[in-house]
């Protein structure tokens, strides 16, 4: 029993990581239709921000807290810059964004290698996050890792914040307007180019936050983004493009599926089975779990 509960928690925590890395992408790819291959490198930028801050702030807990907003701003600024320099010229050619941003991702990886060195680096987790809490005691205790709980909390906070922003704020309304009918939004007096850039800033900033979370799980390296980006795209595509709800559900479903299969088989077999399941699902529902049927985006 504790094994099942423990494994379900593991699945949810894997889902939380997936959700965090896919969340920013749900805005830039899902809403704006830009295939941003450099999204993984924005995650990397967030992770390295944590690393740099930890060099100057000795308290691991404090540096982690400071890293969250700073990584958001750093990655967001990188994203806005990318949008301003390159992507705004390519909104009508979505496939070209793939090539251009892939080139940018390679350049960012090399930049990280030059700045921080090729070997991967690690950060210290605050003591509070290295332990675990016991949910069920006894001979066969059920424990939840604090770092995973923190990531789960972070993912939920980010989803709520993004969803409220899109639903309730003037900026959110403008983003939804631009995504639905760009021309009409433009003639209604919305500066579509400014909305594009702000949306890109938010999406990339969320990638930076994901990067901070990933420092709690594993090492930080120039190529960490490439390992992540595929998973993030899978979550968005299976969830249904433009659907925050789909992203959230699919992230957790894939997380749990992965962990259950991993427990009963091996890591590699589980990966294969998950991919087969995704392919089969997309045969059945090519448009993903949720599709844009109403005018509401969220």
């Amino acid at each position, binding site marked *: 029993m504790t*094994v099942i509960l*423990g*494994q379900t928690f*593991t699945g949810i*925590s*894997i889902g939380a*990581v997936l959700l965090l890395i896919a969340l920013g992408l749900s805005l830039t790819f899902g809403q704006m239709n830009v295939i941003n291959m450099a999204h993984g490198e924005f995650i990397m930028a967030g992770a390295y921000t944590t690393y740099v801050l930890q060099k100057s702030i000795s308290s691991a807990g404090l540096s982690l807290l400071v890293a969250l907003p700073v990584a958001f701003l750093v990655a967001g600024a990188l994203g806005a810059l990318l949008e301003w320099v390159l992507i705004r010229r390519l909104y009508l050619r979505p496939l070209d964004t793939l090539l251009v941003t892939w080139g940018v991702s390679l350049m960012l990886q090399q930049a990280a*290698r030059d700045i921080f060195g*090729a*070997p*991967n*680096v*690690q950060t*210290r*987790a605050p003591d509070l996050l*290295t*332990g*675990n809490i*016991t949910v069920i005691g006894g001979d066969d*205790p059920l*424990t939840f*890792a*604090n*770092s*995973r709980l923190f990531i789960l909390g972070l993912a939920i906070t980010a989803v709520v914040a993004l969803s409220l922003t899109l639903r309730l704020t003037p900026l959110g309304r403008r983003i939804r307007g631009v995504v639905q009918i760009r021309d009409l939004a433009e003639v209604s007096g919305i500066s579509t180019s400014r909305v594009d850039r702000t949306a890109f800033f938010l999406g990339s900033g969320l990638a930076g936050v994901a990067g901070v979370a*990933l420092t*709690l*799980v*594993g*090492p930080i*390296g*120039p*190529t960490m983004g490439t*390992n992540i980006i595929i998973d993030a795209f899978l979550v968005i595509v299976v969830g249904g493009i433009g659907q925050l709800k789909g992203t959230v559900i699919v992230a957790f479903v894939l997380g749990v599926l*992965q*962990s259950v299969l*991993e*427990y009963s088989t*091996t*890591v*590699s077999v589980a990966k294969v089975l998950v991919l087969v399941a995704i392919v089969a699902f997309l045969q059945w529902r090519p448009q993903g779990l949720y599709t844009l049927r109403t005018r509401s985006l969220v």
Partner: protein
Amino acid sequence: MAGAAALTAVVVLSACGAKTDAAGGSSDAAAKADTSGDTVKVGLLNSLSGTMAISEVTVRDSLKLAIDEINASGGVLGKKVKPISEDGASDWPTFAEKANKLIKEDRVAATFGCWTSASRKAVKPVFEKNKSLLFYPVQYEGLEESPYIFYTGATTNQQIVPALDYLKSQGKKSIYLVGSDYVFPRTANKIIRAYAKANGMKVLGEDYAPLGSTEFSTIANKVKASKADAVFNTLNGDSNVAFFKEYKSAGLTAKSMPVVSVSIAEEEVKSIGSQYLAGQLTAWNYYQTTAGEANTKFVKAYKAKYGQDKPTSDPMEAAYTSVYLWKAMVEKAKSFDPEKVKAASDGITFDAPEGEVTVDGASQHIYKTARIGKIGTDGLIEQVWDSGKAIKPDPYLKGYSWASGLS
């Protein structure tokens, strides 16, 4: 037209190469070391980027230290040694490509490096085809001999088997195997299973994660649920960071379930963080704390060159030793010719930081002392057991009846 010119150039160049061969001696190798000037080039082939860089950069640094020392004391056969460093980038095809480049273009007299068995397997045919020498400094899964590779790290009977003997002597009756998904851990675990079967030990599970993987929560859960007495860890590179973070998060400790690692040395302990590793066990042939005058000198020289906070580790020591062994072989052979160097190798000894080592000419491995260590909170490893004397290398485990079915 340009093509024809290029072809002519190639023909002329290869003719020149052939001439050097004829002048140089007996070898019929396609590429031959260039020893015409007052320097002799050697290749350093390590991953300076990617998931293995955490470990391999230190090996490169250590090789350079040995080369500097040798140059300072007059070089080899009166020639200064000039290292050509290449980055294998944690990518096995790249290793093969760079090995080819070192042999054919740089015309090195010998090459030092590689870490993962996958990279060694990738370069093995390149060195064999070109009849050039590779000195391989890392412990590995055994079951291999190549006429053009000198293995200066431990083979299984000098590391894994003693580690299992140690666990058995500590009363550990069941183990869980965790490793990276490639040739070394899979072969090592096959050997461990055979040992366990013959020694009444139970293997409760065997899990692999892709090299570079950072998601270990499920594996940690499985290990925890198995209630094994100990974990045998053959993970490589910085997967270990994620694994030990998860291990601690799952509430597992060195006391409740010790982990024996065969790929974590001082350098890795430093970057993983000793708070995750304190109390865990490692199996190696050398630690920074190993007693002896040669080691004091080595540690001092390394720290002077690369920084006081830089630890020394087993593969670094084996790499350092390998350069000196090559020097001794070349001097005994009075030639840089790989065939003559090989012929001179048997019985060469060197007072290495790990203690005296001797080359076994037949297997081209070396006699090494096995050591088990415990990781301390300061990041250093204290020896808790050693084999007392240097163990004869037995890469095919011919001396063990339980290993007869392995290949």
